[in-house]
């Protein structure tokens, strides 16, 4: 039998904190096993060795914020058979998409003394606004076990098992008492995509939505409940405008609370 061709894995970074690709290195028990199944062909955070494309599996971290990156993502797409975005930046534009609601020139002037030197786009946008994406993995940061699941599903030619239901289901699975019902703590769990394992409610705080909107979330109803708990309009605006602010359902809901 001819030797099995090892699929080539590439990891690409755009505007981000590096945390999602770090998740791969945080798989302390699985990393060497994964490295045995794939050829790590481009992963600059971990290796100097760079193998030319095309790549079988591309993991893309970060959002598009500069004209150069808007070009580069097309090169990545062309060199990749299967492209997976990892995390809130790549999937929804990330926290840096807060600029999308403001004048970016004002932002530049606040941070940089010579604004003319800064070459940046008006908006921070998800990868899917630019190229076709084969699979999106949610989270700020992603869950490393879900990342291993995605890689493993790819290697075995099956669909990744990453449920699209709400964080509420994860609280029930974990046996965590509802912080909203029992303690009146405002929680985004009912509209937030599962994947983290409902960490915040387990630590006695409400979910703050870092995995972004679930499938068909009823954000309007949840806002009503939050108002009932005494949360003000301007606070609701901020709640929906964080790490997944530019994801459509959260963006629309936030606009409902804008003066």
């Amino acid at each position: 039998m001819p030797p099995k061709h090892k699929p080539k894995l590439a990891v690409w970074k755009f505007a981000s904190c590096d945390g999602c690709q770090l998740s791969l290195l945080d798989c302390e028990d699985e990393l060497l096993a994964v490295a045995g199944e794939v050829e790590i062909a481009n992963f600059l955070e971990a290796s100097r060795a760079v193998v030319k494309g095309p790549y079988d599996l591309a993991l893309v971290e970060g959002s598009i914020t500069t004209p150069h990156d808007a070009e580069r993502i097309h090169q990545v797409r062309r060199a990749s058979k299967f492209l997976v975005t990892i995390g809130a930046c790549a999937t929804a534009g990330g926290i840096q998409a807060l600029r999308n609601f403001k004048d970016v020139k004002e932002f530049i002037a606040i941070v940089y003394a010579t604004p003319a030197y800064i070459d940046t786009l008006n908006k921070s946008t998800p990868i899917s606004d630019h190229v076709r994406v084969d699979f999106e993995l949610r989270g700020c940061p992603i869950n490393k076990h879900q990342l291993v699941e995605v890689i493993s599903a790819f290697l075995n030619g099956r669909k990744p098992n990453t449920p699209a239901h709400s964080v509420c289901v994860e609280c029930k699975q974990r046996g965590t008492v509802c912080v909203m019902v029992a303690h009146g703590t405002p929680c985004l769990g009912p509209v937030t995509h599962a994947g983290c394992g409902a960490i915040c409610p387990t630590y006695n705080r409400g979910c703050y939505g870092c995995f972004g909107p679930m499938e068909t979330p009823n954000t309007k109803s949840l806002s009503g409940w939050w108002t009932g708990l005494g949360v003000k309009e301007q606070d609701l605006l901020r709640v929906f405008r964080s790490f997944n602010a530019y994801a459509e359902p959260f963006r629309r809901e936030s606009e409902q609370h804008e003066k």
Partner: protein
Amino acid sequence: MKSKIIKVDYLARVEGEGGLYIKVRDNRVVDVKLKIFEPPRFFEAFLRGRNFAEVPDITARICGICPIAYQMSAVHAMEDAFGIKVNGQLRALRRLIYCGEWIESHTLHVYMLHAPDFLGYQDAIQMAKDHGSVVQRGLQLKKAGNAIVTLLGGREIHPINVRVGGFYKVPSRSELATLAERLKWARDAALETVRWAASMPFPDFEQDYLFVALRHPDEYPFNEGRLVSSRGLDIAVGEYESNFVEEHVEHSHALHSVLKQQGPYFVGPMARYNLNFDRLSPLAQEAAREAGLTSACCNPFKSIIMRSIEILYACDEALRIIAQYEPPERPAIDVPVRAASGYGCTEAPRGILYHRYRVDEQGTILDAKIVPPTSQNQRVIEQDLAQFVPKFLALPEAELGWRCEQAVRNYDPCISCATHFLKLEIDRG
């Protein structure tokens, strides 16, 4: 005229995107640029208008490698603004979670990013083929650090349990005790790590550095202390901006922090070690001596040893905190919001991380300033390269480039952190 240009387009095994450009004329380095092309994300701008309570969650997202550092500098700055101080076991828990981050971040750098340079591998995965048990030890040591962060913080990257005033939930004694067994193993592994790091081949490269770090009366510094230097600086954190300035240097594409009248300075494990050796635990001091170090070391290539000593110290300190732990009555103290300014500076794995916030009477942020360690080290990195390259010009091109990369990696630069604050200059020709 003999001319040479050393270019590294994409620096590997650093966090974030950067490159290197060195120009040599007649065996003299005439230009060194540590290029930063990581796109800016404007944190200081969008923090304006956010609520003080959101700051630990938001600033954590500046860096996936050292989110605890951002959370710690942020909460201490806010508590300074509101005139409160977190003491007792809550303070100890903050120290403990920081120990976890140091172990995790330092081990990542020592084993996966830095050691391959010394041993001639492209990465730790290739290194594992010849040094399997060593890489496994590194991974398990890293995991021990992550276990602390995960237990106290909820998850290893962007933890969710840190708040202004304390935590959302504190662990029970028995929950913390579950970490102790693993940390005892980790302490032994860290000791092995110090010995292993000390056995690397080091180039002879001593420099006269200006070190800056926190210094505390009794402890090796994490969250508190005065800012001191190896040349007599001794100031409160609130005086940072009247002593340090960000300077635009013509040959560079980035804003560099310098100490007024004194110039570039060095932050991180080697600065902490040189300024706080007497605050290390006896075990860590002993391991340093065994590794052939005295209380002073000025060879940045040996930072891998000092980083390993700090891993050992962090394991030791974590075990001490766990042994003395009694759960506090409440997970957080009250936060009396008022209009004020606050300052915080803590020791991130890569060095001092300064935060300053101004808030109004509702706790809404009016103004924010953040100075990460890597932007402070940039100028020293470039100076090192200017000194280092002429000594090794005889090396073949590819190897010289690699040595330069190694010299940059001595600092464990985190470009993702630095960039949000650096000035990027695009030369349009």
